[in-house]
């Protein structure tokens, strides 16, 4: 059974101006659909990655999975339990301690007035658990010194802080860790250290990751399955090998071609056209059709459903017709 099951998840934000402005200026309410009808499953002990550009809804999904946001429609089940509708407090408590989160900015996500020991044991201490020696043990596991437990966050570099965040996430012995851009704020040599650490810990502790990133190269390295988001919709889902060699959705192909490559000096490619449209007023039919080289009439009318294609799933009326330009 899947550890995480996300079904028809939708989240709408009200981004209207304040009530009085609306009355005076006679403006309608404005709704922003950040996530629209997204479904996926994460089997235990695997890494599921969500990629997309800014505004694609990847962080919103992450927050709904951990329960920081309530879905407008649809639901998230973790170990078969929907935390929003579950009424048994004991069950909620048990499931919640199985979920942890690692955030992007290691400077903002550690309390500057707390010692590292207190930060790391907080998830256990909050539930009245035994914290003796726990911080020291976890610090060793993430490659820091046990003596660091008495220090404050400002005494560490960005990479070390992110290790502390990882240690804190491990403290309650979770099954699922949601990582929202865990290495975007780090330099590339430090990023490699943290990604390697996360891979090692996954094997040691049998963890499941929901890995959110905008960086295709990082995702390719970490994920077992990749979901590509565009304007809040899941447009393609596939294993990294398939996704990068033969993407079935034109947006995926565009992302792969646009990503700068190390071996591509002197490469002359036509950059993709256009930008992500306004999410409060998404295009009709397939949200990608105004930028899509394959778009035909049906694309502007009917929203494609996410359907099985090859070894993955894709939401496109012309699935599989795109070919990578200058693919290596």
């Amino acid at each position, binding site marked *: 059974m899947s550890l995480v099951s996300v079904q028809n998840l939708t989240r709408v934000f009200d981004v209207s101006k304040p009530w009085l402005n609306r009355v005076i200026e006679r403006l309608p309410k404005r709704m922003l659909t950040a996530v629209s009808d997204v479904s996926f499953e994460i089997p235990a002990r695997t890494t599921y990655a969500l990629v997309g550009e800014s505004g694609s809804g990847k962080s919103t999904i992450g927050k709904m999975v951990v329960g920081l946001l309530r879905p407008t429609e649809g639901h998230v089940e973790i170990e078969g339990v929907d935390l929003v509708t579950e009424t048994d407090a004991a069950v909620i408590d048990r499931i919640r301690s199985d979920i942890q989160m690692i955030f992007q900015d290691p400077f903002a996500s550690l309390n500057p007035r707390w010692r590292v020991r207190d930060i790391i044991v907080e998830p256990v201490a909050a539930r009245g658990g035994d914290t003796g020696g726990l911080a020291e043990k976890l610090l060793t596991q993430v490659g820091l010194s046990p003596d660091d437990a008495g220090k404050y966050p400002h005494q560490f570099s960005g990479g070390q802080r992110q290790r502390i965040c990882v240690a804190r996430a491990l403290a309650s012995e979770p099954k699922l860790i949601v990582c929202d851009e865990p290495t975007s704020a780090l330099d590339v*040599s430090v990023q490699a250290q943290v990604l*390697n650490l996360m891979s090692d810990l996954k094997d040691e502790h049998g963890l499941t990751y929901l890995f959110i990133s905008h960086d295709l190269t990082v995702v390719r390295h970490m994920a077992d399955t990749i979901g590509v988001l565009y304007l809040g919709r899941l447009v393609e889902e596939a294993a990294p090998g398939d996704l990068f060699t033969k993407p079935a959705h034109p947006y995926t192909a565009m992302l792969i071609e646009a990503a700068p490559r190390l071996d591509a000096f002197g490469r002359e490619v036509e950059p993709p056209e256009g930008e992500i449209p306004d999410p409060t007023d998404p295009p009709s039919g397939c949200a990608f059709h105004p930028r899509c080289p394959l778009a035909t009439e049906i694309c502007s009318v009917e929203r494609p459903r996410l359907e099985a294609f090859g070894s993955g799933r894709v939401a496109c009326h012309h699935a599989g017709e795109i070919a990578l330009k200058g693919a290596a």
Partner: protein
Amino acid sequence: MDMPVLSLRNLTVDIPTRHGTLRPVDDVSWDIAAGEILGVVGESGAGKSMTGNAVIGLLDPPAHISAGEVLLEGERIDNYTLAQMRHVRGKRIGMVFQDPLTSLNPLLTIGEQLSETILRHLDVSKSEADARAIQGLDEVGIPSARNRMGAYPHEFSGGMRQRVVIALALCAEPTLLIADEPTTALDVSVQAQIIALLKRLCRERGMAAMLVTHDMGVIAETADRVAVMYAGRLAEIGPVSQIVGQPRHPYTDGLMASTPAASAGQARLRQIPGAMPRLNRMPDGCAFHPRCPRAQDKCRVDPGPKVGTADERAACWFPIEQDEAAA
């Protein structure tokens, strides 16, 4: 050979503090020829932005150039007064910074900002300045440029704003463009657009450019030559194909290998142990030796050969040889 557009000669920047003098840029020398894009890479704290700011005279006091020279088209500009520098900045050196929103004045329309810059630096009439502004916006790919002149920065998307900033940097026809992380704040599809735009403009105008970034992929696609900086020093400089394909300095090698793209399909990324030293705790000798797999006794005392001489491009006593990399 023609005179280079920009020459740095042993440029050194010092920051005096109560606890001693910090040296964020240490003895950096390079040339950029007309039409050439020099990519400057390094991790945070390597001194890349500080070098760019030193060139345009925008160091925040107490940071100052303590030694060396900056030559623009053979003319020394590091000892210019503030008033003299104002005629260099914008007119002869264009600048593009990371965040397009903070580079633009939110209270002025982009047309006002462009024509103000043109009027300041070029001897033209107001109507001609407007015409040039429209032409500039057209060139960077802003659709219906004439109608957009009256728009304010907040009415543009991030990518379009960065195009406006580039138009602003280029409107006085500078000979040198300094772009400090111009695509870091942008999404990957927009980043590809901006990179293509910068490349095209440099080629068309024969403009020299110094592109500062931490993204190896961006450098590989854009630059003609690459300078790798580490802890304020120049670690390696050379043509992009050699730096990426056959790095000689162990730091360059580690940097390339630790990008996830380079090790696609491998279970583990190659990592460089440790972190860059802080400026107040610089090791003796080569700054990289505590993290270097090839370090020997000599590296702990002697900072490495000077780069920029004809036969050596890596500041390393024991550089990686070509046959070794193949083995």
